[in-house]
């Protein structure tokens, strides 16, 4: 029994593990005590004084973020004393806050706006001028600071200290002249710097990448997984008008907690680069039907002795896409199986979230190839020359190291790709497929978590999900793959890959309009 304590919050009794703070305990009861400086992923400093509550037998109000729950403790969060404290604290916080909402990127998802409206909602009583500070402070490569908007909660300082392990931000001066600034000789350039923008409860820190591009309440959020590296940080794709505007981390205690790296945040730009929007046959746009027929005809020559055909699975594509192609390859009985992916970047690995392997699905592709009994070799081994009998290649993705222009010329290449680059333009037939943000599917990260991605918006032009393209190609070559949804591919896959046999496909998540989600913070 020493492991848990029971206390009463606003007349409701609750039992929580020992060491839990009152704020978290109240949250379990559905009572969201207001706070600026408290963040569940950061050390507690109790400096915003916004979460003050009354604890019986205690003469003064206590910050609920720092107050650890005690046995038999009686807490009041809505009594006159703590209600007044919250109101006064908000009034105090707003004294020097600039009138920026119409031009502030945080408006709509601002904790200060939310708490003021929830807990104070009173008129201004200030009749003196506001203290002015610097409006545009360039803190580093990705972030701009507005010192007037800053409410000095220190979340960003702690984020740099804890997440990146680098002390790059500090407070300077005192009183109403206190400002956030970079530490002496430092700039805000760590690999996790943009997390400070997420945790900022106001619009003080804004990302250069996102600021002045889109209003927060106009966006819709779809849960997904970052495709920047093998860690597979859980993210939300925030999108509008059929394109992503930013990626923000989503809580997953086992993978990335509340954080993600800056590099991962920028991967959404790639979704709009050099996209393949229509099937291409010998350099000219073609319909799906024609492209698939030509591909089948070209491959048909070799299908009698399929050992002349090779397939390239991609560590950049989802489990479903790879599984579909591998299953087709098995049905054909191909002779060569390769795995393609970006080369590792050892300098990236930092023992935190960033790892050397910059392919999102290396583990998944290996597991799938293994399950089919393929001896898959990396494509860069083709550097040593093509195997004697390799005549045709069906390849997934646009990153295929080891294939140069000369080798491509010798082969009959069918490419399934989201982008028109690398070896794709040289292919006999190129079939357009959806990129990671545009189709439902799963990836497997370096710890073996099979994680779900949801389609945020539609792929461009005639592009289809990768597995769907494979189904069409299979049908044209006389093979039947009876899938009509990524879920069907997944179910089939869990029956083939032994390690994944207990996995289930959860229902699709629809994009959540952020204006319905209420304020984030």
């Amino acid at each position, binding site marked *: 029994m020493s492991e848990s304590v029971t206390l009463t919050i606003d007349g409701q009794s609750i039992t929580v593990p020992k060491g839990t703070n009152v704020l978290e305990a109240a949250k379990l009861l559905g009572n969201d005590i207001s706070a600026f400086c408290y963040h569940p992923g950061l050390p507690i400093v109790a400096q915003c004084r916004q979460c003050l509550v009354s604890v019986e037998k205690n003469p003064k109000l206590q910050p609920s973020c720092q107050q650890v729950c005690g046995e038999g403790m009686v807490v009041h969060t809505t009594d006159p004393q703590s209600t007044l404290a919250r109101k006064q604290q908000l009034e105090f916080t*707003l004294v020097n*806050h600039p009138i920026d*909402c119409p031009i502030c990127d945080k408006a709509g998802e601002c904790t200060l706006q*939310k708490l003021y*409206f929830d807990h104070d*909602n009173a008129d201004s009583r200030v009749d003196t001028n506001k203290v002015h500070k610097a409006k545009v402070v360039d803190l580093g490569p990705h972030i701009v600071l507005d010192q007037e908007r800053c409410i000095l909660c220190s979340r960003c300082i702690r984020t740099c200290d804890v997440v990146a392990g680098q002390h790059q931000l500090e407070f300077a001066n005192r009183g109403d002249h206190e400002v956030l600034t970079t530490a002496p000789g430092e700039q805000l350039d760590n690999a996790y710097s943009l997390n400070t923008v997420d945790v900022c409860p106001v619009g003080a820190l804004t990302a250069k990448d996102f600021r002045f591009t889109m209003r927060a309440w106009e966006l819709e959020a779809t849960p997904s997984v970052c495709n920047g590296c093998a860690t597979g940080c859980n993210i939300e794709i925030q999108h509008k008008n059929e394109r992503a505007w930013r990626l923000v981390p989503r809580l997953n205690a086992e993978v990335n907690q509340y954080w993600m790296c800056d590099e991962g945040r920028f991967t959404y730009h790639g979704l709009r680069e050099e996209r393949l929007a229509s099937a291409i046959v010998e350099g000219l746009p073609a319909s799906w039907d024609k492209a698939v027929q030509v591909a089948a005809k070209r491959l048909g020559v070799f299908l009698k002795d399929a050992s002349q055909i090779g397939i390239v699975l991609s560590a950049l594509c989802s489990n479903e896409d790879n599984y579909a192609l591998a299953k087709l390859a098995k049905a054909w009985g191909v002779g060569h199986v390769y795995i393609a992916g970006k080369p590792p970047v050892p300098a990236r690995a930092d023992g935190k979230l960033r790892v050397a392997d910059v392919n999102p699905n290396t583990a998944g592709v290996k597991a799938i190839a293994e399950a089919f009994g393929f001896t898959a070799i990396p494509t860069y081994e083709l550097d040593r020359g093509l195997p004697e009998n390799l005549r045709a290649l069906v390849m997934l993705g646009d990153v295929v190291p080891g294939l140069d222009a000369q080798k491509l010329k010798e082969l009959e290449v069918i490419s399934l790709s989201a982008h028109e680059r690398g070896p794709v333009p040289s292919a006999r037939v190129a079939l357009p497929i959806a990129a990671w943000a545009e189709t439902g599917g799963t990836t497997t990260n370096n710890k073996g978590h099979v994680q779900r991605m949801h389609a945020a918006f539609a792929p461009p032009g005639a592009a289809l999900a990768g597995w769907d393209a494979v189904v069409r190609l299979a049908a044209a070559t006389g093979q039947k793959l009876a899938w009509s949804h990524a879920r069907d591919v997944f179910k089939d896959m869990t029956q083939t890959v032994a390690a994944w046999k207990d996995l289930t496909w959860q229902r699709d998540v629809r994009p959540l309009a952020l204006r319905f989600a209420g304020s984030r913070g």
Partner: protein
Amino acid sequence: MADAQTLKQLVLGRKDVQDLSDTEQDLPPDLMTVNMGPSHPAMHGTVRIVLTVDGEKIVKGDVQPGYLHRCFEKESEHATYTQVFPYTDRLNYVSPMINNCGWAMVAEKLMGLTGKLPRRAEYVRVIVSEMSRITDHLTCVGASAMELGAFTPFLYLLKCREWLYELLEKVSGARLTHSYVRIGGVSKDLPEGFGPELTACLDKIASVMVECETLLNNNKIFRDRMAGIGAISKEDAIKTGCVGPIARSAGVDYDVRRDYPYSIYPELEFDVPLGTTGDCYDRYLVRLEELKQCIRILRQCLVQIPDGPVMSDDHRVALPAKQATYNTIESMIRHFKHIMDGVRVPAGETYAFLEGGNGELGFFVVSDGTGRPYKAYVRSPSFVHLSTAEMLFKNHFIADVVPIFGMINMIGGECDK
């Protein structure tokens, strides 16, 4: 041959004329199906009525509404409480101000603001509501008379309506879709010189009504086509949920303004006219009398209306003044949150109702504590009244559909939601 005959019968719904015997040819005994609507010149509103007739006599009148369905209730779930006002304008579009007031009342009830609005706001609401009620009744009476061939009263009464619309346009900025009322009051005060203008307008309307009564009340054609047509008994009216002029014409003594008083109605003197026979002529007379009562209420309001604000100063509902919005961060945030997140209505559910043009108009709202209704429902009198149509049509002639339907006063926007 037998098969061909059956087929013909299936297609035509009856035997072909040459296949009939002599007696049958004189007067086919089979029932016939006739469509009235959805767009019919002698019916106001877009509604389809499938009449099954025995000769000229109606055996069954299957009423099929829904042509103006706009998903009012579902759309409301995606709009803030304030953004729903324009949707309510399109419910009973002949008296939109009353709908506005009803929607404001339901939110105010959940927020505990009922009875706490500024006095002037309540008076303004009653004034615009009663003006709307007049336009509603004028339209109903005028259009019904026209459909029976009396074109003059239609022009006279619609001209009266236009005078009121012009006044309402001065008040709200829009002729028909006012969106004038807000939770906690109304959006702006009455324009300067409104009182004298309305008084002059009411005088003119009163004199026009005398003319129209002279033209209609004892008009032989009009009375023949209205009296004894589409009668509903008091019991049936109650049983089917009829309210407003239809129920009152049948002798049901029920008026929300008097029986469940809201706003400042307890302070105003007015009578609730009752009919005896419940037929179309009584409905017409009840509406005429109500018009006079509306004018009476308006005249009292214009005398009693106090000065003062027209919007509650409760920060939960009132937008801050522009001066404050642009110069203080507190008001800026409040303005932003009101517009973007909506007026935050406490969690709970409630039903609020008032006397609409057609009777008890009610809104039921479930709130989850956010700025948007979790569920909104409207009890629209037109929908209930239309459900009695089939019963009223029975055993009348096809020509009687016109006055019956006219006097039910089905407003498509309100009925179809």
